């Protein structure tokens, strides 16, 4: 025989106490009053830096993290201030953001969408991050951007170059400073025409994922517009390490240009293999055979070593730029870490400053107020000349750098030389351009 110890009064009392206990933290949290997710207290604000700390892009992630730490230091009034004095907006005064000291938490994206979402979610839900930023892959950027939209926090994208991030997958809470595949095509094509002529036959090798597709589409479209013919476009698996089977048939295909729509380890290996197979010295259709790498990264160029010499590509930013903003950033970063920053470091540093600036101008951490402050905002002094954060798609429009692998590097960082700074209006496109159709920003979500 059993006897229950529960009484009606006891259950009610316990229930009331437990209910009050559970409700108290929510009641005490500011966001229940402020009307948006993770509203900060009066003394500090937490930013979430979601970068690849493990996996194939860990080195880029490490450089992003260095830049974030530098940005936080400058926002809090430490160091030499970096780009704060050169930034056209002068509302940031080194007292944090709206008087709150900037703190940060970090997450590891592992360059995997699910891991990146999990770490972003953890930073939002457990650490109270009010803004998520970072990443070195478009797949991750699109996934985390969607999560931030649902959670009601701002996402300031890191290194993501696919058209889709601010095209079919754009979100009202997401903002991208980095350039995109379309811009690469638009900037690169005139330089290719000037150097290699208009009568060329291109063979594309394309990484078999989202970024590869949009880059191939952009380069094909812009090179075909200058008279080039695309003789073949072959998808290569992302996991491929030896590209010899793909490269060997290229020379006999009738093509005289090989376009490597590859990034990271893929780019290093495919370019190395192409050079091994003698493509740089070969002749085809009575012309010198040429190789093009649409998206360059200095960290990756280092992996390919001397193979990058003389090869054209594009980049978002380069440490050798001589504008005041770039010089200030290189000085600040170089003094602290002993080497110049990468383009990944630059874009993440700038994104942090732009977020802090937008909050300050808006006078609120509310994501919708911040988004409004960023939309159609024009600024200068952050390393890419005059820049517009377009409201229609949350994409930055600025000058694009066309670069070439340097023939005689003077040191281990001196791998790329800038051959042209393509003006922003030459790479600007209509928000409804076919390469960007299929998605809508939607409305800003403040969460809570």
């Amino acid at each position, binding site marked *: 025989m059993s006897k229950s110890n529960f009484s009606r009064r006891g259950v009610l009392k316990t229930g009331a106490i437990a209910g009050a206990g559970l409700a108290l933290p929510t009641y005490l949290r500011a966001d229940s009053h402020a009307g948006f997710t993770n509203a900060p207290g009066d003394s500090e604000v937490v930013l979430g830096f979601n970068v690849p700390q493990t*996996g194939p892009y860990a080195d880029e992630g490490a450089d992003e993290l260095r830049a974030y730490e530098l940005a936080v230091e400058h926002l809090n009034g430490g160091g030499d201030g970096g780009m704060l004095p050169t930034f056209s907006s002068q509302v940031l005064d080194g007292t944090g953001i709206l008087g709150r000291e900037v703190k940060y938490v970090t997450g590891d994206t592992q360059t995997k969408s699910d891991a990146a979402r999990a770490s972003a979610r953890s930073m939002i839900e457990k650490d109270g991050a009010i803004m998520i930023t970072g990443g070195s892959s478009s797949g991750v950027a699109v996934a985390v951007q969607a999560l931030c939209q649902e959670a009601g926090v701002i996402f300031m994208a890191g290194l993501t170059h696919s058209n889709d991030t601010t095209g079919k997958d754009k979100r009202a809470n997401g903002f991208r400073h980095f350039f995109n595949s379309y811009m690469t095509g638009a900037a690169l094509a005139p330089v290719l025409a000037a150097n290699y002529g208009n009568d060329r036959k291109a063979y594309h090798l394309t990484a078999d994922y989202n970024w590869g597709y949009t880059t191939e589409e952009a380069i094909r479209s812009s090179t075909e517009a200058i008279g080039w013919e695309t003789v073949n476009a072959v998808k290569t698996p992302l996991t491929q390490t030896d590209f*010899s089977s793909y490269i*060997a048939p290229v020379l*006999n295909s009738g093509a005289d240009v090989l376009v490597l729509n590859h990034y990271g380890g893929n780019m*290093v290996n495919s370019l190395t293999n192409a050079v091994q*197979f003698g493509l740089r*010295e070969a002749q085809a259709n009575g012309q010198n055979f040429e190789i093009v790498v649409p998206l360059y990264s200095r960290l990756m160029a280092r*992996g390919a*070593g001397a193979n990058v010499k003389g090869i054209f590509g594009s980049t978002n930013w380069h440490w*050798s730029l001589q504008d005041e903003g770039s010089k200030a950033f290189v000085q600040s970063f170089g003094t602290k870490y002993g080497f110049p920053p990468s383009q990944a470091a630059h874009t993440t540093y700038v994104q942090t400053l732009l977020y802090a600036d937008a909050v300050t101008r808006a006078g609120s951490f509310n994501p919708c107020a911040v988004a409004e402050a960023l939309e159609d905002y024009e600024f200068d002094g952050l390393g890419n000349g005059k820049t517009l954060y377009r409201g229609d798609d949350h994409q930055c429009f600025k000058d694009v750098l066309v670069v070439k692998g340097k023939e005689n590097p003077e040191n281990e960082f001196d791998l790329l030389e800038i051959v042209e700074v393509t003006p922003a209006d030459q790479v600007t496109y209509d928000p409804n351009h076919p390469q960007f159709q299929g998605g809508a920003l939607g409305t800003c979500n403040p969460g809570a």
Partner: protein
Amino acid sequence: MDQFILQILNGLDKGSAYALIALGLTLIFGTLGVVNFAHGALFMLGSFCAVTLSKFLSLSHKVVDETRTDFLGNPLQVDVPYVHDWFGVATGDAIIDWAVPLSLLFATPVMIGIGFIMERGLIKHFYKRPHADQILVTFGLAIVIQEVVKYYYGANPIPTPAPSAFKGSYDFGLLLGFDANAIIYPYWRLVYFFFSLVIIGAVFAFLRFTTFGMVVRAGMADRETVGLLGIDIDKRFTIMFGIAAAVAGLAGVMYVPINPPNYHMGMDFLVLSFVVVVVGGMGSLPGAVAAGFLLGILESFASTAWAVSNLPGINQVIIYLVAIIILLTRPRGLMGRKGVMEE
């Protein structure tokens, strides 16, 4: 026809790497009965022996060049390799240029040592455990090795080129009467192919023509009886583990100029090498070599633009398809002993 020959050539160097790794794997399985998932890590460690020696030979001291500036505007500090000071610029550059072949001398004792430590320190404790335990511990070890390498060398690939004498490629097409550029093949890949033939030949000769090898083969056939004859077969098997590690390591050293090494390269080869071993027959040395070249060539054909456009994804699955067919029709593999994997 030219494309056919081209893809066979392409398959040979990939097949060489598969064959060398699979040879070591099957040697370890045949002697010690251990399924070594850390074998890919040994290949990667071999590559990093080349990277390490290359960096060591390039060790430099700084000389300030007042006429130039660095990225911060300070006087440029130029790196001058110590070998320039010791041997003169021309000889010093030649030594740095030949770092990869020189690494073979450095990597051989290092890899044998690593093999010894791995076998005596960890794997011997798992001889009597189920294969699942062996796989778990060796896979875990592979991840640890990988992370240690990443910690010291970073995640990005490190370019370590072949000697300049082997740069460029040979036009086989002209030799065989085809058009220029129809069949081109990089010199270093030819070197890699012949190198693998030498290593494979040396391992086979060692096992066939030396007393040590004869004892090992006897031990592989019947470990207990050899033990009863008073021979310390365990010691010999440990040495074989060291040799298998060295074979994987040397394969890694010579692979470095083909693709710049990174910490993950071992894993890229590991799974495929296991498939090679299974297709060739677990424990069969000739089987591993034959299957290595066969699958390398098949993979090469499956990666042609024609194959990929007609059968999308075939390049990714061809090796596994062959493995499934072999396992269904001949579970012991192409040259496996009767009974192995057939219980």
